[in-house]
């Protein structure tokens, strides 16, 4: 399963998905959110929803010098926090900007494709899709 943006045009910018992501990790506020919503240069133009798209061949994992990020079965990555040295290569490698950063521990935060946020998007922006394994 992976998270998909069904229609970003429907996004109202409420950011409930971001709060849900943090809550899923037993955090209030937004520090731990692995999904981001911001306007496209002004709210009148709509929003961009930034989240890991679970690449088949994740660029972030390829540039990880310690193997802390490993491709996950079905797409995307898993982080072995103990192996991560916080170099930030992964963050630079992701063109989407979907590698968020935990400033407190200096390590990446990446969506684990759990889909909890979908439950809190009342306008159908997010959906979950089964991905064929290749």
């Amino acid at each position, binding site marked *: 399963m992976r998270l998909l943006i069904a229609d970003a045009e429907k996004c*109202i*910018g*409420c*950011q*409930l998905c971001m*709060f849900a992501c*943090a*809550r899923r990790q*037993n*955090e*209030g*506020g*937004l*520090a*731990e*959110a692995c999904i*981001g*919503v*911001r*306007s496209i*240069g*002004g*709210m*009148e133009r*709509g929003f961009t929803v930034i989240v890991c798209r679970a690449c088949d061949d994740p660029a972030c994992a390829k540039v990880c010098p310690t193997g802390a990020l490993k491709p996950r079965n079905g797409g995307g990555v898993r982080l072995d926090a103990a192996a991560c040295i916080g170099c930030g290569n992964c963050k630079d490698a992701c063109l989407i900007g979907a590698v968020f950063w935990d400033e407190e521990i200096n390590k990446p935060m990446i969506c684990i494709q759990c889909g909890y946020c979908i439950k*809190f998007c*009342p*306008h159908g922006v997010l959906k979950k899709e089964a991905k064929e394994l290749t």
Partner: protein
Amino acid sequence: MLANDTLANVLYIDLSNKQYWVRHRVDLFERYLGGAGVAVHLLDEECPAGVDPLSDENPIVFAVGPLTGLFPLASKTVAMFKSPHTGNLGESHCGGRSAVAIRLAGYGAIVVKGRSDIPVYLAIHGDKVHFRDASSIWGIENSFTVGRIIRESETGAGLRTIMRIGGAGEKLVSYACVITETYRHFGRLGLGAVFGGKKLKAVVVSGRRSLPVGDFKTYRKTYDEIYDSAVGSPVMKKYHDLGTAGNVLPLNILGGFPTRNLAEAKFEGAAEISGEKFAEQYLGRRLACSHCPVACIHIAALREHYVDEPYFYKTHMISYDYEPIYALGSLLGVSDTRGFLSLMEQVEIFGLDAMSAGVVLAWATEAQERGIISEKETMGLKFNWGDCGTFMKAVKLIVRQPNDFYSALARGVRYASSVYGGMEFSLSLAGNEMPGYHTGPAAHIGVMIGARHSHLDNAGYSVDQKNLSKQDVGFEELAADLLSEERWRQVLSSLVVCFFARGLYKSDVVLKALELTGFALTREDLNRIGEAIHKRKYEFKIRHGFSLDDIYLPKRILETSTPFGQVSESYIKSAVSHFKRLIDSSPY
């Protein structure tokens, strides 16, 4: 409150000396929750009687609440200041990203003091405050442009608020507003002019902290309950589908829709400026405040042809809501949908309170019709009901104030009519231009006695609608109803819960949510807190010269029939006197 919560951090910023510091005010937050309750105390501490609202001594207080960033729909920021418009308590509420940004930057309140010697804007990113030289953007009259420039030069996209003023704030128009996120406002009572008086062009705040919560399992459960009731509620659906503009047709059918300076209360052109009309033909986008699933903010897309070039167009994105539709629509006799949107945009560009601007223009139109003012005063403009083009020119002149007449209009309708006459049809109560409800006695009494003279203080219009089915509601009952509603709303606005969600945040839900943020309170505690905050506001008002006995009641309000028929002056006065007795007898 929870020991590790940053809510009690109050950020003080001194524009005169370009300094800032943080004080921990657990005392205030423990007792008054946040928002309005904390803000009125901070205002009181910083603003003694006699302070000139446009001087360096007038503080600006922003406050949010414990539920902000943790629960949905608790996303309003309360601003308090001394109003340059009424010369008394200034309180204005705004959504957008403002409240969540302040809370996640690590503050429960921000106090801006002093006056800068050069134009500045403030950039508050977490625990860092930057005083940015705003010389290069001072003088930009268009609030959209100011937002666009700052958006590019500051960090924190998606996690920030950009509060800014347009030309009206710089020129100290007493009802200039502060605009955030392009489409939300600290609309009423002139916060924009207080910014202008401080040479403060904008305030940017960003943050993305974690917030502590009590028991996480209960937190998620309570959150889900509130969320489910929000997305399942018919009220929320109404605000999502049509927005507040959905109230135009019902209020018009009721006969409570002020028209042509309230000479009438039904508008024959209502359908052309209704929520249905805008949604069907112009709705281009819906937006939400942070942490609110509703998206009541409705943006019209207005395509305009460049007259000098074939096949070349621009698209204006203009927000519309019930109150501006009343003030810049029916009250001015405007039934031209496109014309209304252009006038609305003009008011947004310059950053005026749309409600006050509409009332001022309506008075000017009637005053010119009656010959009280001539084209000499208006500099050649001939105001006619429905003529948006002329009103748009007048908006610009009100901001730029090229003569005494427009300077008078820039101080509101009470002042303008005190100079030129026509007070009997100048639609202001206690110095604030009236909102769009001629629904009966409670609407007007509510605005008169409301601590900020806003329809949202006690929702008198809603009391009227409830009373329509009853026989002869006595003035005692009516005054008591309004007071009890206003006291409860002090609790909601201290939690900064949006008033549209008041049906979701009943006291049991409030208590549950508060418990998770470390406030162990009872229903009686909430009632006591609401009453105490209300009393404190009134003490501030009286200390700054307000008296319930001095409120001028324009005859027009009494002459034009409401759904209850004509409202009697003696009934209004009795209700106001009774209200005064009730607050005087409050033990707090």
